[in-house]
């Protein structure tokens, strides 16, 4: 059965959480990984990302390219 938006979002969140501090992911990275791992498509991934960001679980960050990260304390540089 195809993965739900919810499933994809959770899986994405785990990946980002595990990478925090060492590896940053772009939406396209996550989408590619999900399409590979789960039974899902790009549209679902897009919805999942929107869900994650709207709910505040992930935020977009920008440092030489846009990434999805766990929200961290604001400031000039991530810490």
């Amino acid at each position, binding site marked *: 059965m195809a993965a739900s938006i919810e499933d994809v979002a959770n899986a994405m969140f785990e990946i980002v959480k595990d990478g925090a501090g060492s590896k*940053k992911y772009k939406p396209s990275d996550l989408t590619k990984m999900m399409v590979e791992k789960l039974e899902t498509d790009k549209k679902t991934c897009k919805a999942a990302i929107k869900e994650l960001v709207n709910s505040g679980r992930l935020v977009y960050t920008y*440092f*030489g*390219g846009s990434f999805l990260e766990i929200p961290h304390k604001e400031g000039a*540089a*991530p*810490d």
Partner: protein
Amino acid sequence: MTERLTDIGPPHYEKFLPPVVKENYGKWKYHEILKPGVMVHVSESGAKLFTVRMASPRLLATDTIRWIADLAEKYCGGYLRWTSRNNVEFLLTDESNIDPLIGEIKKNGFIIGGMGNSISNIVHTQGWVHCHSSATDASGIVKAVMDDLSQHFENMDLPGKLRIALACCLNMCGAVHCSDIAILGTHQRPPRIEHDTLDKFCEIPNVVSACPTAAIRPATVDGKPSVEVLEENCMYCGNCYTVCPSMPLNNAETDGISIWVGGKVSDARSIPKFSKLAIPFIPNNPPRWPEVVEAVHNIVDVWAKNAKKYERMGDWIERIGWPEFFRLTGIEFTKYHIDDFKHAGLSFKRTAQMRHLPEE
């Protein structure tokens, strides 16, 4: 609390179009420049739209915008626009309002012009006012240069259009790379590496791959993962800093400006071209950067004196040849002028067609 709106996009432009535009949308027949800074567009229907173009420093206080709005209300039924070079355009239907409007504009210290064969506003960027990346200020140089050139904004006394742009670092926000004259903030030293924080703030593979000349490689410094820069491979582009805050380049002693000439965007007559290096480096000299002002003034003067009608800077230089450009402007030709990046060889002169002056 009302619902949080998102993704509504900008308001529909029709809301802001003056009635004469709505009625004659797509039906304009021709235009004429009536005098510097004032033109009329005439519709198939006979309707006329007068435009008065006012210089703007781009960085505007709300009070000034309110003053502009008041003028628009008084003379233009409340309608106005900005241009792609950040000038303000008042849109009038009543010709008799033109001069009073101009009177009020000038009284408040603003000027009118930038149309036809003139110098329009300098497209520019943030500089020390807002950007972390800058090798120089933006607004200050623009002000100093335009003070010096304002007669060419207020008059149409040039062979063709002259477009100046400024960017405060090599990121080149703006069309600096395709301007008749480009003023470019330029570093001269490799990045300083803050090894303490680098691993925390930056992804090392990203940093390494950011460098156009492969000058960066991973290194362990004091036991911490970091990077090192092969200084002889670095040409101070700052791209490493863009992706990694721990590699700043700015430097009070050595930052400054380079000047580029002969670019254009329009396809009129000749195809678009990049600006080419004229002056490799002028140190920062605030508040008025006199050397930059003089350099630009000189280039404008030599061009204005020698170019044919409609001949943009780059077309003129191509006609007379670069050696003649350097001779006429008195700018020194150095090894820095010779390209050494990827396509360098394509800028070498691979022909025997050449102008020689007879022996003196």
